């Protein structure tokens, strides 16, 4: 019984620790997909953002400068994706894979000199200041980026539902004909949505290198950027749901190590795969054969 409690607690703590990059990338992906385009390149953006953030923080001594630089690097890489996909006949899924490759390549290339040095990291906000217990204090030390991510989710949700800009993005994403009829600039909207979405993904990368695990190396991302695409599907293109999806995914990821700390070592590979099994099950349960998913932007290439 006690073991179950320990595991659940560890999963909760783990989900708070690892969910932030998922949150940022899925929000960015959500924005891009709302405009009718998909960007698998956010995996590359995440890695590049992590490297740029770490390098900038090391050079300037300011982790927040690092976060800003990561966002800018995402904006640029996403901008390239957005611009090239505006050309006729270019496949956005394939271009995403290309951007992923190029982004990680550039990050690894320029990141070599930053593997060894230690940069200044972001510090958590100590919500546990009232407690004398180190465990509690640690559990309640929250990364400011996590709060920023939640704020971004709320802002994005509000933006889609209550502002002209949000409405335009949704129209462009839902129906090219309607957008044309209204005279909306389709390519420009998608370009901006992709670039801004990638800027968010870049911040997710900054979290990886500047907060948790808080280090730059080539194995830093284990596919978080790609999995974000799946998270967007099961959060039904709703930014608020992205928060829950990221937290759940993070909790599933903490299952493997926390089971082992209570002595359950059997089948650890399978437990480590828990987040993916969980994702697959959710996809299957929520699938609606033959019809498109509720909330899915009509122009999305993966829906056709």
């Amino acid at each position, binding site marked *: 019984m006690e073991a179950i409690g*320990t595991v659940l*607690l*560890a999963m909760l*703590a*783990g989900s708070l*620790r*690892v969910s932030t990059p998922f949150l940022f990338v899925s929000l960015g992906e959500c924005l891009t997909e709302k405009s009718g385009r998909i960007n698998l390149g956010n995996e590359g953006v995440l890695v590049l953002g992590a490297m740029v953030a770490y390098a900038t923080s090391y050079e300037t001594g300011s982790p927040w400068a690092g976060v800003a630089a990561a966002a800018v690097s995402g904006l640029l890489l996403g901008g390239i994706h957005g611009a090239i996909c505006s050309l006729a006949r270019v496949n956005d899924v394939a271009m995403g894979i290309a951007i992923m490759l190029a982004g990680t390549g550039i990050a690894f290339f320029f990141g*070599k000199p930053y*593997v*060894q040095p*230690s940069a200044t*990291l972001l510090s958590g906000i100590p919500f546990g200041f009232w407690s004398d217990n*180190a*465990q509690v204090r*640690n559990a309640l030390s929250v990364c400011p980026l996590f709060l920023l991510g939640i704020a971004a989710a709320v802002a994005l949700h509000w933006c889609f539902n209550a502002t002209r800009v949000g409405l335009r993005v949704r129209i462009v994403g839902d129906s090219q004909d309607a957008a044309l009829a209204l005279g909306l600039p389709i390519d420009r909207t998608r370009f901006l949505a992709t670039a801004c979405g990638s800027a968010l993904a870049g911040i997710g990368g900054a979290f*990886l290198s500047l907060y*948790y*695990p*808080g*280090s730059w*190396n*080539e*194995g*830093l*991302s*284990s596919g978080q950027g790609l999995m974000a695409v799946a998270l967007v599907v099961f959060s039904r293109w709703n930014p608020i749901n992205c928060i829950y999806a990221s937290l759940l995914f993070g909790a599933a*990821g*903490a299952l*493997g*190590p*926390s089971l*082992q*700390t*209570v*002595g359950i*070592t*059997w089948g*650890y*590979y399978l437990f*480590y795969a828990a987040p993916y099994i969980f994702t697959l099950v959710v996809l299957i349960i929520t699938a609606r054969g033959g019809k498109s998913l509720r909330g899915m932007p009509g122009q999305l290439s993966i829906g056709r």
Partner: protein
Amino acid sequence: MKPPNPTSLSRRRLLRGTAGAAGLAAIGLTSEQARAAKDLTVGFIYVGPKDDYGYNQAHAEAAAMVKKMPGIKVVEEEKVPETDDVSKTMESMIKLDGATLLFPTSFGYFDPYVLKMATKYKDIQFRHCGGLWTNKDPMNAGSYFGYIGMCQYLNGIAAAHATKTKKLGFIAAKPIPQVLINVNSFALGARSVDPTITTSVIFTGEWSMPVKEAEATNSLIGQGIDVVTCHVDGPKVIMETAERRGIYTCGYHADQSKLAPKGYLTGAEWNWITVYKQFIADAQGGKPIPNFTRGGLAEGFVKMSPFGPALSEAGRKNVTAVKAEIMKGGYSVFKGPLKDNKGNVVVPAGKAYPETAIELESCNYLVDGVVGSTS
């Protein structure tokens, strides 16, 4: 001429006209190589990045020292996977760079890649890090490896002096003998100081997976563990995470004290330059390079990191004293009666396995006091 053993060399390769490779007493240098002895080209191949603060860095640091030796040209390639890619890298170093002495440093390079290349290029010397060579294998190949378990034992002693919760953590890649010996040695070291201490082990399943390693560290800390060590290729993230959470660390592979200036107690390090210096001197002097060499602390193949500020005076004394005992040789960590954590006797009473014991090569248990299981 005695034919090579068919179990280690495939028959088909043998039929291709390479018979007798092992029979040739070609361990020395051919006349052509002797002439070029002034200018020896040595190739180092790493499975991961050279600056991983771990396994590959330990080799690369030694390679950097080799580079400064007169008459030596060093060629290096990092991140070479344990696939046919490594045969091609070896071949490329031989054919395009003129390397005559190769150090493929990753364990998984040996079978079949080093064996294949050693059969194909009989004039080239291959020395593989991992202790896998047997006298049935080609004579121009060979193995070197270090017994690092004793260092993990000393790590355990240091950890026992630092822990307050009496719970230690070990983050391991895979439950294979090499790793299990380290886990067990660490736990035994700690229990030699205080038998109530437990060591929790987490297997990540991968040699290098920083996010999982950080998560494992946090999970352990969540259980009240206050000293952590590891056996993964790059311990950087583990050391940094532990330092940030304010717990103690014992290093592995290379010196990681810079990553955890406050909590670093000591560490188990490779000292490969000992091996490389000897091999290269042999090659330059036209002497045969040993085919099989293994050594521990006493032989200088491994070493301990300097003590960190967090280790108490009593701890330092204890570690230093035991280390002196080990340096005398013949020291055994695995002494009977010893039970595994399921209650089975693994070392019968009256028996003792020193680090060179063949019984340890197939170690597949976790000793009493380790929390976790091997499958």
